[in-house]
């Protein structure tokens, strides 16, 4: 598959998604690119912005399985991964797969479950497998976790540990739609749009699982120049020496930035990565991986501010300046 075909598929999926999800084009693009780069997505936004609808519509268009877990304080790890239960007919324990055994998993309000339950996803997200009672079972391909969390409510929530955050390829911040977009949403509802019945909307399945895997595979052929590698390295290294950052990004972040840059290049019909691809995805890849100094937080500095200043300092390769 060449870059032009890749772009056509991508544009088609985006176009189809825009029929049900209005005013969230950037979020859709980030989620799609992260999924193509075999990554997981953490979506942060207040309730009611269409996060669940996004994942459901995406699974429909991509032709992938979709399952949803509503994270609650009493959710147990086995509720996520599944476990062995006694089967009276077989007179023995059989493994009952949990909802994680799917291709697109929506982990809704992931920070409402305690760390123990959240950690149940660690192996699934990193190794794409689940181990129960000493038996490791692989998860289906493709596999992507799309988790959501509410940034406003903090009572009764459990912040995600750094190890968990690092496993998310990108963190996407969803904001309220514009006035025009919101008006369009209302018009869609007046015209009979029903988010629970996407078939009736006429949402088409554009890809299949096989095709989606081919797209993922095609990213391997996207060329990355040495100077681009240096640029990625420079950006990530600068997060570790920034004055406001207590803990910088890990090498996993560098790898993630490289993967997303490749995917971004392919979505634009290019078979090579340019600095703009790296710069475009640096905030999404890095923002949840930075731990700020307390005094920086008191100053009101956000991870995005730090990334912004880092990108302003980093030298873009082959620049005219």
């Amino acid at each position, binding site marked *: 598959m060449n870059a032009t075909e890749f772009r056509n598929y991508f544009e088609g999926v985006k176009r189809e998604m825009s029929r049900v999800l209005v005013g969230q084009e950037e979020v859709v693009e980030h989620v799609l690119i992260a999924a193509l780069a075999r990554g997981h997505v953490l979506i942060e936004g207040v309730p009611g912005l269409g996060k669940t609808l996004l994942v459901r519509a995406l699974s429909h268009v991509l032709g992938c399985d979709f399952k949803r877990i509503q994270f609650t304080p009493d959710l147990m790890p086995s509720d996520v991964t599944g476990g062995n239960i006694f089967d009276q007919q077989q007179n023995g324990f059989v493994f009952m797969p949990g909802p994680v055994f799917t291709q697109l998993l929506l982990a809704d309000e992931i920070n409402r479950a305690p760390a123990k339950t959240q950690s149940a996803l660690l192996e699934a997200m990193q190794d794409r497998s689940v181990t129960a009672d000493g038996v490791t079972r692989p998860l289906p391909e493709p596999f992507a976790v799309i988790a959501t969390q509410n940034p406003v409510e*903090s*009572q009764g929530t459990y912040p995600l540990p750094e190890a968990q955050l690092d496993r998310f390829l990108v963190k996407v911040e969803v904001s309220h739609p514009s006035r025009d977009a919101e008006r369009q949403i209302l018009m869609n509802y007046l015209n009979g749009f029903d988010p629970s019945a996407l078939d009736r909307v006429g949402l088409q399945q554009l890809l299949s699982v096989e095709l989606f895997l081919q797209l993922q595979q095609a990213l391997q052929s996207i*060329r990355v*120049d040495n*100077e*681009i590698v240096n640029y990625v390295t420079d950006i990530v290294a600068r997060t570790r020496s920034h004055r406001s950052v207590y803990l910088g990004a890990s090498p996993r972040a560098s790898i993630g930035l490289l993967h997303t840059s490749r995917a971004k290049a392919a979505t634009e019909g*290019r*078979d*090579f*990565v*340019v*600095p*703009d691809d790296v*710069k*475009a995805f640096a905030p999404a890849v890095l923002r949840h991986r930075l731990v700020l100094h307390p005094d920086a*937080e*008191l*100053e*009101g500095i956000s991870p995005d501010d730090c990334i912004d200043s880092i*990108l*302003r*300092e*980093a*030298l*873009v390769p*082959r*620049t*005219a*300046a």
Partner: protein
Amino acid sequence: MTGGRLTYCLVVSRLLLTLVFVLSASSARAQNDDYDPYAEPLPAPKPYNPPPSDYQYDDDTGDYYDTNDNDDDYVYEPPHYLPHGSYAIDADLDDEVSKLPWCDEASEYRIHIADSHLCKLEDAALDRCPGFKAACARPFVGRLTPLQARGGGEGSGEAKKKEEREPTRLELPKAMSGFAQVLFWMLVIAGVVVLIVVIARNLSRSQKEKEGAEALQLEDEEELAAAPKGPVETDVERLLNRARAEADRGEFGKAMDDVYAALLRHLDGNGLIDIHHSSTNGDYVRSLRQQPDLQRPVKECARQVERVQFGTEAPSASGYRSLLERVLPVVTRGGMLLLLVAACVGLPLNLGACDMQQEEQNQYGDLGDDSPGGMSVFVSLLEERGIDVEHRKRGLAELDETTQVILVHGPAQLDGESWDQLLLWARKGGTLIVANHRGRPSEKLGARRTAGECKNLRVPARLSAYAGKLVVAPDDRRMEFEEDVEGTPGARSLLECDLGPYAVERRLSSPDGLTSGTLIVLPDSDMFSNASMFAANNGEVVLNLFIGSPDKLEIVDRYTVIGETSPLAAVAKGQLLPLVLQLFLLAGAFFLWRGAHFSKPRDPPEANRRAFEEHVRALGGQYAKAHASRLVLSNYAAWALERLRERVLAGRKSGLIDLAAALASRTGRSEGEVMEILVECEAARESSAGPGDAARDLRLMRELERLLAETGGTR
């Protein structure tokens, strides 16, 4: 020196050189230009036939009578002031001589070349102004002007020869004050020094770079890549030239980089993008969102370059050419450049024209000009006589009735309406002396200028009071009577050459015949010059025969009519319209070329300091995130209870019951309500580490704040 500074210095030096070149060209043009667009063509002289009749002065009656006129119907009425007899002006002239440096034999005064033709009077003025002859013998200063060329004759030729001997000096406008002149020269010297320093630095730097390049001898590519980067080229033209040179050498990759850099530098120079080391090509393309016509080609160029820089496409000649074809239409603005060059060249030329006009002003325009060609002596003599001399700058629509004589002087150029106004005024009884040399309506004046030698002047015999007075003509021009002029009876000469009249006089009657005035026409205004005043009896004749003793005399010259009511009309009358239009053209071209921004647009500086309130809010936010509302309440309650005790119990140590009673009596609340608040606060103090209810804790803090406010303030 950085690349930007280097480019700036080179651009400045180039501009300075261009300016010097243009000014030199302008100066040379003015120096060699004998063409006077305002000069009137002088017609060939006609044979002079003395008038068949002449007037004689009757001492008994005090009137003129025509000796040949048998027609009793017409009686010539001379001007009211004629004759005045012969006022001696020698004493006044002696006073004036002491004020004039060019009359002082000991001075080294050098005459301006524009006045050189007046040296013809040097012998005639020798008695009164002995230094004039010596001054005429010295080389002249200044440039040849059309006025000087028009002077013709020997003096002119000699002046040209003298000027050839004397190199032209750079002269500053006389209007500049002493400080301004010092400042000007300081700036010029500073500019030259900076230019020399910049050139010297560039030469030494390029020499060092050459030596360094020879010594470095980098062997492999890694070392080459690690070598320090040189100054970044920022000039578009030089980048393009460098790209062409690289393409000629077959280095198409570098050539494409430079072509693309030229494109970005051009956009940056126009304020459309802001080149920065952290900006990507995508950033630049997005910066052009407001200009889609430009955004598309720039995006295509960026794509093409990136395919070579980061992709698999090899740099090639065809790629370089196609990129160059895309970039050149954007970076070249041929028409605009031409317009700018035209404006830049035209402006100095206009200024040169202004300079030429300044020369003329020196000769004729300034009433206080004490050079040989000035008229300070003439004005002083008039004022000595008690005549009110006024330099008229307003229009001629409303001429003052108290004015009795109007002298049209120097290069005054009046339109037809102004001439009509002047002649109408004269018909009402005034005396109009026309001595200018531009744009005369001969048909209205009844006489025209003509060329011809006019050495010795004589006063016609009818003016017996001036008989025998030696008058010397300052130039080689004279007048001719215009033939077939309607309503010109009594046109007579006041001064005559051998070949014809030098000054002529006409009576002008109003249409109703109730009033009449006098019109006197001379070839030019040299007769009123300072040099002429000292020559022979010129001063006496001019003052007595032409001027007389009016109460008020107004001088109309090139500055007349400038004082208009509207700025536009004043600019037009002041002949500044071409200059102003040129400036507007230049500003318009600059606006189109550089865009709407007068400088590179920049973001406002970020505020680094935050307000105290923001710190407090951030701290509060941190406490809220940590669910530490109980800790906050306990601290606030401890402080608030102490304050309340100080206020209502005078600091006495007592229990909550006493405190509640005192607060209830002070605030008017029920004791139970106050007691409930105090007890809850006391409990919060004791369990500061425990979990709290944020809403309840906040409510208690607000209650405490109210109690504090009701007992004397929240602080």
